[in-house]
């Protein structure tokens, strides 16, 4: 982990060769080279990311089905969303998913990171195991868990039965469908958060802890007074990215409901709706409107978090 500190970004000034910049000709040469260097990347980004995003906004004001003529539809698509039962459900599910997955996965990851940072033997082993779900494709994750959750032939309920605990029908009981997906989401995210937090923890100078122990501070006190504040930049990063990625929930819903309308009605997410409207029902207008709303919410939440960070993040 040492290299990370060495390579941590510095606020270095633009480091171009000064000697060459003295002449106007040198400056022109530099300019053209710079444009040449950024051009390929910006063509790709512009054509496949920036323009499409702008186009999405435009399409959201039309009634296009991908085939027929386009008609301007004003705010119709957005108005439809207000009364669209599916969109309401999707919004609620997505919100609840983020609300559960973000704090629980970050909380558990913090716990694991702190325990791992205690300098135990086998740290590398634990780190590896916790990280495996992160490199596993989400469709495989969904498939595995779908089988784990099977109330008759899956191991989870077999274990619960052995312990004489209640055995819910995880995925097929609409009360638990979303909860089941949340559990998988948490399981899959812990490793990722843990690695970032662990790096943050290892960046805290040992001297702080030494000072605390000289003052006779207990473990909990040290954690809340020293560890947590110094970890807050990493925590902030983890929370922000985790919020964004949970709001983009799609793969797990797709695989774990298997597209069954009854299961979907208790688990559909906003991105699932965008997919369904756009690529199953070919209603590009409403699909784009939903994507735009999602983007607006993500943007808003990110801005709010950036504002709030001043209250709790210590740099």
């Amino acid at each position, binding site marked *: 982990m040492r290299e990370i500190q060495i390579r941590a970004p*510095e606020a270095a000034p633009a480091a*171009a060769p000064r000697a060459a910049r003295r002449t106007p000709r040198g*400056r022109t040469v530099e300019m053209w080279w710079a444009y040449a260097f950024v051009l390929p990347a910006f063509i790709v980004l512009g054509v496949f990311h920036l323009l499409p995003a702008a186009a999405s906004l435009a399409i959201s004001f039309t009634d296009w089905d991908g085939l027929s003529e386009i008609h301007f539809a004003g705010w119709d698509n957005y108005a439809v969303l207000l009364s669209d039962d599916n969109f309401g459900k999707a919004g609620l599910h997505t919100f609840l998913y983020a609300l559960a997955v973000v704090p629980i996965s970050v909380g558990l990851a913090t716990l694991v990171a702190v325990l791992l940072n205690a300098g135990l033997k086998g740290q590398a082993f634990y780190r590896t195991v916790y990280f495996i779900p992160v490199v*596993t494709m989400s469709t495989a994750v969904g498939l595995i868990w779908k089988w784990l959750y099977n109330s008759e032939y899956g191991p989870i309920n077999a274990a619960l039965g052995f312990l004489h605990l209640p055995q819910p029908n995880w995925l097929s009981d609409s009360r638990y469908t979303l909860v089941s997906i949340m559990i998988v989401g948490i399981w899959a995210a812990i490793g990722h958060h843990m690695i970032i937090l662990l790096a943050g923890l290892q960046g805290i100078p040992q001297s702080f802890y030494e000072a605390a122990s000289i003052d006779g501070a207990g473990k909990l006190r040290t954690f809340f007074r020293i560890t947590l504040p110094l970890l807050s930049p990493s925590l902030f990063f983890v929370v922000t990215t985790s919020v964004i990625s949970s709001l983009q929930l799609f793969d797990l819903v797709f695989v774990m409901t298997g597209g069954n309308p009854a299961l979907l009605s208790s688990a559909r997410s906003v991105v699932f709706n965008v997919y369904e409207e756009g690529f199953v029902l070919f209603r590009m207008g409403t699909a784009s409107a939903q994507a735009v709303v999602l983007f607006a919410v993500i943007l808003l939440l990110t801005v709010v978090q950036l504002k709030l960070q001043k209250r709790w993040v210590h740099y």
Partner: protein
Amino acid sequence: MTRLYRLLLHIVLAAGALLMALPFLWMVLTSLKTFAESMQAPPTLIPASWQFGNYAKVFEETDFLRYFGNTLLLTVVKTAGQLLFCSMAAFAFATMRFPGKNALFLLLLSVMMLPHQISLIPTFLLVKELHWLDTYYALTVPGLASAFGIFLLRQFFLSIPAELGEAARVDGASFPRIYARVYLPLSAPGLLSLSIFVVMAAWNDFLNPLVMTSSDEMRTLSLAVASFVGEFSTDYPLMMAAACMAVLPLIVLFAALQRYFIQGIALTGMKS
């Protein structure tokens, strides 16, 4: 730390690790059962007879090698593209002065903020107009550069002492030469970190191939795993065997390059 405390920590961590690993263990065990045994209630843990033939059956019943090849191809092309294009742009942003630099950088940051889903439909329509639907172009070209990659490498390049580049410039080296001979060799860890992100995202990507491809020839592993639910809906052991083979390459890669994975991920946490 007392012994008891250490033991307690180990117990907690081991319990957590078990929860992390059990689903994979179950996947492997199920993949080796017969269909009848997988449908036994309560389930068995260890297969009564080991069905290694399930793995061969996946190859017989699906074009698994093709899916594997497709996934490998798109992963390699995307990674190569990102390493080249992102490092070039990052070099310009980190070391050069040019009009519009700040504006372009802001643009870059805003692209980074865009959730992918918002551009999904227009990108699909664009790809359709280009007649790229269901081709390797659709799977690779949009992913040849990323704002995140440029940002990550820029941070790396900024940490390389500027004097190195200046010295080369004084010696008459051109910008491409400084990029290729001074900066790239010094940024191997950064490039490796970026590759790891791209490999992970490309290998596991689901939504893009789902939307951009339609034929069996273009299917990726991620899509294949999802559609097995339909194909073998009667046979969970086969599905698990397929899933096993789809996730194994990245797990092996991760085990081999663990340090760089972790460093790369940790590095993103630093950028704030």
